[in-house]
């Protein structure tokens, strides 16, 4: 007797409207299902969604906080999506954020530069280069010895995080900090400006600028075309005379450099010092963002913004209804799950096949 078997197979869907509507629909379905969760917790779903909306985009303050939250996600999401474009799986954005934060902090703490613009430029360049080199290691290993970049980038995360802690518990510890794991506060020269008496800082606009730049690079240049070509068929690209090796290293360099800018913008724009746990998992969230954004630079901005709403709005559920944090995580997880599922079913169908063929 054979059990029914299921097989996923690729579907050729040529419906741009559906492609566009699918994420929207999946959000609605997710909200609908999550509504039952809210009902079970004794909260009116309509009121809850209104509150999430109000708290995250309904006021200058809420909107600014959502953008603040989206900023590191945009940087890291751009980095990850660039690599994904080439079918290079950079799982190391988290570590690259730490490297960027560390490099920028090193400049801020020890360079002694007093000029505002020069200081910020040096911090930015340091973060960019260090993050790039950090990720570039994975590129070199991949090209030279065929080492899988997933493993390398993932494991290097732990090195980066522990390295940061090593400095914070040792050489970079604030001498006035009673031995706590944080660096001294940055001088005013090393802080990004903020706007409207909120925490919205120029890092956000830098992130938008990077997104635009990356978009133009990918869509309007030969280099961008090559990256996409190598991504969709490396053999054919090589056959066409494209140098895949250097391209892989360069893409990983840029990918890491972009993620590292998230670290720069967090320390220079928000924390104004290096602290233990500077990124609460932005680098991993960035992977989901890059995927949902279909690896498009402008899509990353939109999805990061939505993710910001989800995170900031989650707070408001706790604040207003005292829902436990586990509920918030479940709620956020549910919405992500539906988004990913919708994406999957756009590309695949599940077909029942006769059993016994395996």
């Amino acid at each position, binding site marked *: 007797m054979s059990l029914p078997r299921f097989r996923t197979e690729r579907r050729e869907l040529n419906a741009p409207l559906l492609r566009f509507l699918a994420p929207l629909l999946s959000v609605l379905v997710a909200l609908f299902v999550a509504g039952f969760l809210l009902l079970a917790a004794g909260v009116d779903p309509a009121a809850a969604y209104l509150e999430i909306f109000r708290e995250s985009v309904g006021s200058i303050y809420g909107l600014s906080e959502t953008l603040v939250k989206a900023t590191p996600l945009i940087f890291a999401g751009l980095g990850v999506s660039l690599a994904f474009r080439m079918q290079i799986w950079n799982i190391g954005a988290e570590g690259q954020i730490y490297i960027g934060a560390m490099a920028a902090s090193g400049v801020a703490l020890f360079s002694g530069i007093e000029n505002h613009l020069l200081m910020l430029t040096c911090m930015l360049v340091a973060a960019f280069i260090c993050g790039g080199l950090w990720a570039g290691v994975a590129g070199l290993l991949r090209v030279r010895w065929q080492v899988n970049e997933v493993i390398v980038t993932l494991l290097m995360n732990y090195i980066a995080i522990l390295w940061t802690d090593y400095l914070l518990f040792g050489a970079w510890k604030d001498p006035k900090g009673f031995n706590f794991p944080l660096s001294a506060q940055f001088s005013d020269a090393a802080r990004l400006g903020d706007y409207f*008496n909120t925490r919205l800082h120029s890092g956000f606009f830098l992130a938008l600028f990077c997104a635009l730049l990356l978009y133009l690079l990918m869509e309007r240049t030969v280099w961008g075309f090559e990256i996409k070509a190598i991504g969709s068929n490396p053999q054919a690209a090589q056959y066409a005379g494209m140098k895949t090796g250097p391209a892989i290293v360069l893409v990983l360099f840029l990918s890491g450099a972009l993620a590292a800018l998230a670290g720069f913008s967090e320390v220079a724009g928000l924390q104004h010092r290096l602290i233990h746990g500077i990124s609460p998992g932005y680098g*991993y*969230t960035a992977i989901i963002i890059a995927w949902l954004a279909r690896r498009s630079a402008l899509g990353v901005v939109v999805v990061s913004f939505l993710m910001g709403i989800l995170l900031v709005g989650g707070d408001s559920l706790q604040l207003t209804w005292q829902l436990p944090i586990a509920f918030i995580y479940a709620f956020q997880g549910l919405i992500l799950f539906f988004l*990913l599922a919708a994406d*999957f079913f756009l590309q695949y169908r599940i077909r029942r096949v006769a059993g016994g063929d395996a």
Partner: protein
Amino acid sequence: MKVTTRFAFFIVFLALALTGCNKQEEAVSTKTAEKPAPQAAEKQVKAGFVYVGPVGDGGWTYAHDQGRQAMEKLPFVKPSIFLESVHEGAEATRAITGLVNKGCNLVFTTSFGFMDATLEVAKKHPDTVFMHCSGYKTADNVGTYFGRMYQPRYLSGIIAGKMTKSNIIGYVGAFPIPEVIRGINAFALGVRSVNPKAVVKVVWTQTWFDPGVERDAADSLLDVGADVLTMHQDAPATLQAAEARGAYVIGYNSDMRKFAPNSFLTAPVWNWGALYTKVAAEVKDGTWKSRQIWWGMDKDLVRLAPLSDKVPADVKALVKEKTAAIVAGTLKPFAGPISGQDGKEVVAAGAVIADADLLGMNYFVAGVQGAIPK
């Protein structure tokens, strides 16, 4: 093509899993009890709490939440709001601002990592009173508070020193920061006061709340022969490890005996209600002033949980006597002579370590085996 796309899905789910790892999913939470609004027209206190872990952690945050509930029983206190599992650092700014926007006129931030965020929000809301736990920065509307946990730690050390057979006592430390180091030193001084041959082995987990890592650390101490364990974390994982292997264990934060019914000896515990009710009353009367509160056993902010039946009567009597001496101020755990790990004297006989030095404590005393990362 198909393979790579499938692989991509694998990557995304891996990312989901990794995102999940950074969160603390074991949160068990209770909702605030409904309470009728008080009638009085006098100033009402509406308090907000920012917690670093889930209220169901069974330890640090749980103890703060017990204090919050004790404070809520006061007639002039409106139902309070808390936010749990708030990330330390810049994330906290939004949480604290949210509490102020919800009308809180008294905000407690209950972890060291909330320090900068507390001061940042306080600057924008001069009419709200902020109390930051365990930090060192104050402002006109920001005070700090903490407790002399080293006092009951010392007492628990006496019990550990008496109970150990192998003369190896294990201590699962969180982060090598002064608060934790101070606790380890006080504990070791307590151990050595009754058992000069015993040593206290320290391992660091670099976590406040990660039951898996903490359990592994506790097991590693049991593996090297420790027969009494204690710890400085928010979760009771060390107690569960000791219970499973039949070693004695001393808890921390809250009375954790239900996690280790056969192994539990005692626990140095927080009684935040003593402080929260006092601060709320001050805010109501308008007598609150920014200051740094550091209360001890005399004010009942810190206690030793009732000793279990495993502790023999003579040890119980000894602890009772020493407790009275600490409350009376005649016994000071950090009174000299105290020597460092290298055997050199750090405090001369007759001298006592000053509070400022205790707050920045960065070395181990004799009897502690372990290293502080420098």
